[in-house]
């Protein structure tokens, strides 16, 4: 027995417009190509990619929910668990480490009092370790949403955290 239930998560009207525009980019019958862009759109709206949202995206693209889960869990950008308001995606790869990335990272964790994968109790910050962000000449680097913060030092980190906490 199945009951049709209205999805609990839906795109806002302007995002739905955007989603339709994205789906129309691909050739007939290839709408599944819109999956990654729509997951980004979902995450932009919800802050992460909850299962209900993924089911909703599956519905928009007329694919099975498992096809969305398979994809969302493959790519590291999608948060499959709830996260804080600001997700600090910290580059942990070699070239950044050469520039003192590990020391600055230690400072960041100490400053926020959390480790990778954790969220501060006030729900403001989550730290996520990521691999090379293609900014090695400006290391150490982290990213918060779309913005790259480069040439980090302990002082810069403090400034940025203060700024974001406002």
């Amino acid at each position: 027995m199945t009951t049709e239930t209205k999805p609990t998560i839906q795109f806002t009207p302007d995002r739905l417009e955007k989603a339709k525009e994205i789906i129309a980019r691909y050739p007939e019958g290839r709408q599944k190509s819109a999956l990654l862009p729509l997951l980004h759109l979902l995450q932009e709206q919800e802050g992460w990619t909850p299962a209900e949202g993924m089911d909703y995206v599956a519905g928009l693209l007329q694919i099975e929910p498992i096809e969305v889960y398979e994809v969302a869990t493959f790519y590291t950008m999608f948060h499959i668990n709830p996260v804080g308001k600001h997700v600090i995606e910290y580059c942990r790869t070699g070239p950044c480490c050469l520039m003192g990335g590990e020391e600055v990272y230690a400072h960041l964790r100490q400053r926020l009092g959390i480790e990778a994968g954790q969220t501060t109790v006030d729900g403001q910050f989550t730290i996520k370790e990521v691999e090379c962000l293609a900014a090695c000449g400006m290391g150490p680097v982290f990213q918060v949403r779309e913005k790259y913060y480069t040439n980090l030092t302990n002082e810069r980190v403090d400034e940025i955290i203060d700024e974001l906490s406002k």
Partner: protein
Amino acid sequence: MAIKVLTEHINVPGIETFDVYRKQGGYTAVEKALKTMTPDEVVEEVKKSGVRGRGGAGFPMGMKWSFLAKPEGVPRYLVCNADESEPGTFKDHYLMKTIPHLLIEGMIVSSFALGANKSFIYVRGELMYVIHILEKAIAEAKAAGFLGKNILGSGYDLELVVQPGGGAYICGEETALLESLEGKRGNPRNKPPFPAVKGLYQCPTVVNNVESIATTSWIVNHGGDAYAAIGIGRSTGTKLISASGHINKPGVYEIELGLPVEDFIYADEWCGGIRPGHKLKAVVAGGSSVPILPANLILKLGNGDKRLMSYESLSEGGFQTGTMLGSGGFIVFDETACIVRNTWNFSRFYHHESCGQCSPCREGTGWMEKVLHRIEYGHGNQHDIDLLVDVARRIEGNTICPLGDAAAWPVASAIRHFRDEFEWHITNPHEATQPGAVFKGDMALV
């Protein structure tokens, strides 16, 4: 003044806008190609130029283009690989954010040459801000009549789609990229069939790197022969090098292929030398996957000649004493760098990025990371070094895609050239795990 194919106008204020780019001579290649050339003539010029793929493998671009199958009634696709995720490489990022129209212009010319009417630029998802820059540039080009239906009255239609990735290095591998673009997990495909026959949506497809595609405008404007006159031997033209690590001036440099490595590292025009008070220990010359070389081997060939920045010269000596140009991610290590730690770091990267389809890579990358982690943290055993060599050997060449090789090479080469340092970690675990401790044994620093 060295010739600049890609970056001549990169410092012109406002170059990211259509108007400024156009004033600097932009989009003349589109006019020339669409109005005065046939698609085959464009392919011919690219062939003549000898330009090789800048994404890592260095496969001649014109030859790749001529393999594209052209069955009747089936669309063909051009896909630009802007996934740039190889540690040490950040040139495509720089190019796209500063001079996006250069890539758009190249995409139009290349799509025209290949007969593609819908082309994709697959950008790694982390670079969302660059995606917005590209989308804006596309809208400007479209408004000016360089994209869309019947471009410049030539009857040729082209639409460009910018596709975001989702965070996966493996999607830089061309068939994984195509899977990802189809909305699937980025699992590389078994080859054959190659994309030139069955690529995106099972249609003939060419995948090229950002830098490769951006080069085509210059080639159309100046001719393939003029391009081939730049560079050295079979390494024609210029190459963007992403320089990082312990140098005075990290950044992206456009060099003429054939420049001595020594000049690149020490001359003020490029890296500006090792940071003050330090000495060169090692270099990873082409992105994290290529073999690491100690100072003496990166600067000089076996016969004492200077090693050059070119495909041939960098790989001279094979894997015993050579490396590869790869994607041009030039990572410089001074004597404060710990090779063991760096090797573990790179190993963790490949472990993290393995797609997990084939057993040697899925299991072997994790195994290598764990053993290296143990050695780095003072719990290594004497037999671990040979174990690592053996695991790397059994991954290499036995996997679906070259990520397996890319994971094996850094480990194998680090042990080949810095075995003493690994042994020091194992025999002096207490000393080696002190904060800031590095191996100070016998080695050539320059």
